[in-house]
C-alpha cells in the first residue's frame, strides 16, 4: 500500500495492535451491555411466568403496526451502517458520509415512531403510576408489564439516541474531513455498537408486541 502508515499511540507496538486493542475494548463493553440488558430481560421472564394472562392482555394493547415498522426501520439501519463501514474501508469519503447520515436518519425515524407510541399509551393511562388504568381484574399485573415495557424500551431508546448523535457527528466529520478514510477504526466500533442496539430490539420486539396475539 502506498498510504502513509496510521499513527499509533506510544503504548502500542504498531497500528494494527492499536486497532485490535480498541476493537477488543468495544466487544468487552458490549459484553457488559449484554448483562445490563440481560438483567431486565430476566425480570421480564420472571414476571411473565408469574402473570401469563395479564402479560398477554397487556401485550395486545401495544401498537403492533408501529412496533413492526420500527423493527424494519432498525434492521434496515443496521444494513446501511454495514454499507457505511464498507465505504470507510474502501476509503470512499462521500459514500461514507451519506450512508452514516442515512443511518442516523433511520435512527431518528425509529425514535419518532417510538415517541408517538409513548404518547398514545400515556393518553390511554398505560403509564404505571397513580393514573394507571387497565379494565381487567389483574390490573396490577398488567401494570408490571407496562413498567417493564417503559423501562426496557426507554433504556433501549436512550441507546438509540446516543447512537444517532454519534453517527450524525461521525457523518458530518466524514463529510468535512478525511479522518475516517485515513483510519476507519472508530467507524467500525460505532457500527458494532449500532448492531448491538439492533440485536437488543430483535429480542424486545416479540416479547412486548407478540405475546398471545392469536387469542
Amino acid at each position, binding site marked *: 500500500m502506498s498510504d502513509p502508515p496510521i499513527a499509533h499511540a506510544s503504548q502500542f507496538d504498531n497500528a494494527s495492535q492499536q486497532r*485490535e486493542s480498541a*476493537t*477488543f475494548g468495544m*466487544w*468487552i463493553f*458490549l*459484553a*457488559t451491555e*449484554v*448483562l445490563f440488558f*440481560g*438483567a431486565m430481560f*430476566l425480570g421480564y*421472564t*420472571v414476571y411473565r*411466568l*408469574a402473570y401469563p394472562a395479564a402479560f398477554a392482555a397487556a401485550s395486545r394493547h401495544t401498537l*403492533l403496526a408501529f412496533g*413492526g415498522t420500527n*423493527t*424494519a426501520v432498525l*434492521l*434496515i439501519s*443496521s*444494513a446501511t*451502517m*454495514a*454499507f457505511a463501514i*464498507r*465505504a470507510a474501508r*474502501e476509503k470512499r469519503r462521500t*459514500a461514507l458520509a451519506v450512508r452514516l447520515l442515512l443511518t442516523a436518519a433511520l435512527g431518528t425515524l425509529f425514535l419518532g415512531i417510538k415517541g408517538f407510541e409513548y404518547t398514545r399509551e400515556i393518553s390511554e393511562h398505560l403509564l404505571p403510576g397513580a393514573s394507571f388504568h387497565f379494565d381487567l381484574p389483574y390490573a396490577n399485573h398488567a401494570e408490571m408489564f407496562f413498567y417493564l415495557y417503559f423501562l426496557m424500551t426507554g433504556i433501549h431508546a436512550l441507546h438509540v439516541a446516543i447512537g444517532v448523535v454519534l453517527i450524525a457527528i461521525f457523518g458530518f466529520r466524514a463529510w468535512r474531513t478525511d479522518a475516517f478514510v485515513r483510519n476507519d477504526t472508530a467507524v467500525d466500533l460505532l*457500527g*458494532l455498537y449500532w*448492531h*448491538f442496539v*439492533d*440485536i437488543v430490539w*430483535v*429480542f424486545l*420486539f*416479540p*416479547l412486548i408486541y*407478540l*405475546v*398471545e*396475539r*392469536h*387469542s
Partner: protein
Amino acid sequence: MNQTPAGKRFLFTAVALLGLLALTIGAAYVNLGPFNTIAAMTISVTKAALIVVFFMEIRGRSPVIWVALATGLFWLGIMFALSMSDFMMRGWK
C-alpha cells in the same frame, strides 16, 4: 449501492432479516400453545446470529473477540440459570 460481494452479502442479510420479521409476526397469529414463545425466541436468536455473523463480521475477528462474546453470553446464562432455578423452585408469585 456497492455491488462487491460484501455489498451483496449485506443486501441478502437485510432481506433475510426482514423475512424473519414477517415470519415472527405471522407465527404470533397461529395458536401453537407454549411453542409460540419458543418459535418467537428461535427466530430472534436466528436474527441475532445473522447480525453478528454478517454485519458485525465475527468470523474475520481474532480469538480474543470470540472470548469477549462468549464471556458475555456465558455470564448471561449463569444469571438466568441460577435466578430461574431459584424462582421456579419457590413457587413464588
